[in-house]
């Protein structure tokens, strides 16, 4: 049975468009779920509804089989880590961590041992007496994490808590958080607008678009099998071509294109292919069976270290292909050269264009 369950959850602020709209989602016990989406799509609102800080305007929230929708935050036992950490500025690190234990009237001796345990877990031993303003951003973040974890919450909720850190520290904290979460076996929901963070840290990713759920699945699911145009666009880079569908057959720039699972639609569609699934071939070599290809001129080559990006101007529009720099032969490519861009039927995604 799932641990956290959101059922048709909605939030409308005043008379605005809904911030969260009919959201249904389950999180398994011990699972690490990412809530991913562009700014303003309702991630924080969802998280705060789970924590009990924002009352939903519709739907229910169930934790461990119990309906908590109308419980106040102080009865929910959720560990929330805020984007700006929200440490109590007038309390020491130890007092910050002790706060939740005090609220639970734990005996002093147990408080002391649990604080020590929590500090060890986030590797901040010896910082007990510091005030939050005497800590670096990363240290504050770890105190916030310790404060949320020390109460042994049912669910750990993290709101973009890595976005204030520098790239190096962020990477390190990703690993640490994941490691702690695994060790404690705690259910966690992690809000982020950083897709790399979501894909690399989490068991499953829930994508949100303007308050609605766009897709839930493993990182591989959302990357390889995006459910719709929004997901395909938001996760990873992708080439978009305009196509004409006619029943089972599809054409781009007048040429037929093979698709593994062709949608049975009619009219204009968007045909999408990831850059690293496109290869550059000499123009005069014949196409392999089931391979889609389009010819063009190299317009730009961008060197990014482990890969190069080759932008090719084709009748289907500008396309970007990515290839590794492992072999030496990539040097043979040059701007202005005529080449063919090829990709397989299996890597071709087709979506009806966005309804406007």
């Amino acid at each position, binding site marked *: 049975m799932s641990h956290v369950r959101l059922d048709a959850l909605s939030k409308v602020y005043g008379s605005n468009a809904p911030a969260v709209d009919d959201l249904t989602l389950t999180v398994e016990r011990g699972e690490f779920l990412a809530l991913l989406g562009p700014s303003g799509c309702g991630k924080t609102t969802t998280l*705060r509804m789970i*924590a*009990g*800080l924002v009352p939903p305007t519709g739907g229910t929230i169930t934790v461990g089989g119990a309906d908590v929708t109308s419980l*106040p*935050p*102080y*009865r*929910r*036992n*959720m*560990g*929330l880590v*805020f984007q*700006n950490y*929200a*440490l*109590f*500025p*007038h309390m020491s690190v130890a007092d910050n961590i002790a*706060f*939740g234990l005090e*609220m*639970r009237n734990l005996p002093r001796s147990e408080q002391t041992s649990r604080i020590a345990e929590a500090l060890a877990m986030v590797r901040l031993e010896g910082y007990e007496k510091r005030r939050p303003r005497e800590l670096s951003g990363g240290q504050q973040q770890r105190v916030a994490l310790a*404060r*949320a974890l020390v*109460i042994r919450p049912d669910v750990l909720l993290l709101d973009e808590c890595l976005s204030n850190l520098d790239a190096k520290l962020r990477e390190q904290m990703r690993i640490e958080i994941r490691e702690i979460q695994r060790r404690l076996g705690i259910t966690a929901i992690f809000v982020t607008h950083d897709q790399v963070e979501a894909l690399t840290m989490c068991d499953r990713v829930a994508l949100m678009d303007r308050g609605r759920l766009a897709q839930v699945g493993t990182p591989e699911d959302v990357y390889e099998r995006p459910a719709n145009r929004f997901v395909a666009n938001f996760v990873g880079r992708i080439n978009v071509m305009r196509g004409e569908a006619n029943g089972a057959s599809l054409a781009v720039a007048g040429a037929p294109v093979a698709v593994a699972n062709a949608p049975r639609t009619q009219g204009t569609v968007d045909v999408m292919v990831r850059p690293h699934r496109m290869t550059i071939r000499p123009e005069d070599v014949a196409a392999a069976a089931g391979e889609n290809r389009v010819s063009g001129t190299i317009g730009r080559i961008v060197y990014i270290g482990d890969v190069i990006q080759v932008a090719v101007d084709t009748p289907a529009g500008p396309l970007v292909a990515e290839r590794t720099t492992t072999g030496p032969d990539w040097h043979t490519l040059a701007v202005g050269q005529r080449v063919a861009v090829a990709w397989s039927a299996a890597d071709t995604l087709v979506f009806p264009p966005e309804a406007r």
Partner: protein
Amino acid sequence: MKPTGPVLRLVVALVYGFILIPIVIVLAVSFSADNYIVFPPSGWSLRWYGTLLATPTLFEAFRVSVMLAALVTVLALACGMPAAFLIARHRFRGRDALFGFFTAPLLLPTLVLALALLLAFHPWGLAATVPGLVLAHLTVTLPFVIRILTTAFANLTPDVEDAAATLGARPFTVFRRVTLPLVVPGLIAATALAFLLSFDETVISLFISGPRLQTLPVAVYHYVERRTDPAIAALSALMITGSIAIVVLVERMVGLMRAVGR
């Protein structure tokens, strides 16, 4: 790049001289042995402090002023704190209007306010009474307290309170353990300034008080109006010392400039 150049420093030093001179001279003259205000005095003595002790009207006025300031401070905080909390922490229609209503007396010329209070309080039998003076002083101290405390409450990020709630604190506990400690600097500043404001209030008191009920500034005003001798310098020195003591105390505790919101 140096933040301040020599020219700026010199000019600033001169202005500070201008600000400090009357205060320093008053302190010096209070130890004068002369019968008139002469500077430099021909000799030094403590006789004017003795004269002060032997002047019961000034003593009585001092007592009235302290009592009044204490009462006004307590009432201003009691009425001002909930109002400031409401304005800083709640969204409701007419919030700005309410804040405007509360702070409008700070924009009105004190003289006009004082006359209005006299005209209103006289028929109500409140002129030259303690309740009348308390209410009159509240007219300026209450708006002031509301303004300082609104800033103090507004500077608090609600996230910190939310964090406490998710950790299991009930609303009243959140207020007691998180909100209140964080606004203490503002509270201390508001208390001190309300006390000083009431203690030093002159114009409104001049209109409202009568011969039988005088505050210290009113008594000093009438004294200076009639004659000037070093006794008033001695009294002024004491008042200045009192103000400095309060300011230093507040500065030590919270940092006055920060609490005022600059």
